[in-house]
């Protein structure tokens, strides 16, 4: 993989991969909610009245920080604690909540735009001059492009994408990357910039938090695997490009090669599986799986939220970074030997998916369903999905796993609800599909498998391949995390 200086190692050792940490960057961007796919279409149909109704339902940064599910994502609150908080959770903000925790950090829209300016290597993001002055203290020595208000409005008339704050103030615009190429249209570029920015923030957060191993310097990152949901490229390879290297560059990583892995919401688990394989093969010492947030999904269920009198709860972009390295004697093993992928000939009904992704790999490893402490499935926050008629997605997933445990004779049928509660958790993830798909739980899983009482956590992700109209198939991946064997004596003496 390239010439000196080598970014990778080839060794005779076959190290066991571990997941050292996972971090999320949660960017509260109320001003971008109206640029989400659904709000954009609703505004086009409903005009100024719809725009005003949506804007009135936006949350403050403080409200978003205190929102209990966000604190679960940041790692300051256990998912199970949500069971004790009456719903809807936006009516129960956590007093004194901070925008940071062991699972990541949350930034406001000023912080996001400052990083967006840094991400703009093509000089396509132009900020209003007065806003640029406000932003400057957060920019360090980063350059920033500006325009006067007349210039901004003229650019927007020529298909630039406007940038607003949550209060409606116009603070800039993204220029088109080409005047005829739809793949480089300004709204597409804004989606890609948002993903790049939040992915880099998560990566920076992960690297800043990573402590050196006890025996010396931390290994450099050899490889980045991008797994966000954006299509990067121009008209000749729409979606064929890669974002991971751009994310690494923005985060200040210099040592890594990179590529993207695409599989809709299941992308991160495919990426994690491949990261484990790269480490297990000895080809890389350290791989980070990175993903930026999905701007298109902001406000996706806005109609349901407005009808229920809720604020627009889909107002955050979430980036993720997952650190995979060789066995450090502490972090949980990424059991690549228990990885399962949904194959083309496997059935797509939910119980068939659960059989393939959950039951079969556990049986192959000589484990029962009850041997897994927690299943991390589709962890969508039900407060977001239920007002839009999508139900409680994680509850349905846990019901199926528990039913399969009953079918296998592990538990009695009457024990299904208790099994689902004991091995599941309430949904808490923002509906940023690839984040909700199992990985939202990773900081808690790593904590539970090191300092906590867990022995095993199974990650189970699904991807809706059929959305692209190329197949009726769906996709799925699962993998087991297991307490490090070196931790066992410590636990026995604890």
């Amino acid at each position, binding site marked *: 993989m390239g010439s000196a200086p080598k970014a990778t190692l080839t060794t005779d050792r076959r190290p066991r991969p571990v997941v050292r940490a996972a971090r999320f960057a949660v960017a509260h961007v109320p001003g971008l909610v109206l640029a989400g796919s659904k709000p954009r279409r609703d505004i086009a149909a409903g005009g100024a009245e719809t725009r005003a109704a949506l804007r009135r339902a936006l949350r403050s940064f403080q409200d978003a920080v205190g929102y209990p599910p966000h604190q679960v994502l940041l790692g300051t609150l256990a998912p199970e604690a949500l069971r004790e908080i009456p719903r809807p959770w936006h009516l129960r903000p956590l007093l004194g909540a901070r925008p940071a925790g062991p699972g990541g950090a949350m930034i406001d829209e000023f912080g996001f735009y400052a990083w967006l300016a840094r991400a703009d290597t093509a000089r396509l993001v132009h900020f209003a001059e007065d806003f640029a002055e406000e932003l400057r203290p957060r920019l360090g020595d980063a350059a920033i492009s500006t325009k006067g208000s007349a210039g901004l409005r003229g650019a927007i008339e020529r298909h630039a994408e406007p940038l607003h704050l949550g209060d409606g103030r116009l603070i800039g615009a993204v220029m088109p990357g080409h005047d005829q190429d739809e793949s480089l249209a300004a709204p597409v570029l804004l989606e890609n910039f948002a993903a790049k920015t939040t992915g880099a923030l998560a990566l920076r957060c992960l690297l800043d938090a990573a402590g050196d191993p006890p025996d010396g310097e931390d290994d450099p990152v050899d490889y980045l695997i991008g797994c966000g949901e954006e299509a990067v490229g121009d008209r000749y390879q729409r979606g064929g490009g890669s974002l991971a290297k751009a994310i690494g560059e923005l985060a200040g990583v210099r040592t890594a090669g990179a590529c993207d892995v695409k599989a809709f919401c299941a992308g991160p688990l495919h990426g994690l599986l491949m990261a484990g394989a790269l480490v297990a093969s000895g080809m890389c010492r350290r791989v980070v799986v990175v993903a930026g947030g999905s701007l298109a999904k902001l406000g996706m269920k806005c109609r349901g939220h407005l009808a229920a009198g809720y604020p627009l709860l889909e107002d955050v972009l979430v980036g993720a970074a997952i650190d995979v390295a060789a066995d450090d004697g502490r972090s949980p093993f990424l059991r690549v030997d228990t990885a399962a992928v949904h194959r083309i000939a496997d059935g797509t009904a*939910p119980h068939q998916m659960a059989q393939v992704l959950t039951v079969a790999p556990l049986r192959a490893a000589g484990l029962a369903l009850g041997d897994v402490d927690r299943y991390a499935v*589709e962890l969508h926050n039900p407060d977001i999905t239920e007002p839009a008629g999508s*139900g409680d997605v994680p509850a349905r*997933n846990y019901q199926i796993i528990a039913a399969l445990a009953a079918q296998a004779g592990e538990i009695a049928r009457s024990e299904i609800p208790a099994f689902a509660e004991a091995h599941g958790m309430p949904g808490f993830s923002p509906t940023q599909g690839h984040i*909700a798909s199992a990985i939202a739980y990773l900081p808690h899983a790593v904590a539970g498998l090191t300092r906590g009482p867990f022995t095993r956590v199974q990650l189970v992700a*699904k991807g*809706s391949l*059929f959305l692209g109209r190329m197949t*009726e198939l769906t996709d799925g991946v699962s993998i087991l995390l297991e307490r490090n064997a070196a931790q066992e004596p410590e636990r026995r003496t604890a």
Partner: protein
Amino acid sequence: MIDFKDKLVLALGERDGIPAPALSTCVESVGGRVVYAATECFV
């Protein structure tokens, strides 16, 4: 109980619920004719 015999059916499935191919199989097994089938992801 719905009698699907000779009925035209739109089968709208959901990924975490019942996918469209499963709906179609059920409907066709009792004499219905599926004229449109699609699975969607609602999260």
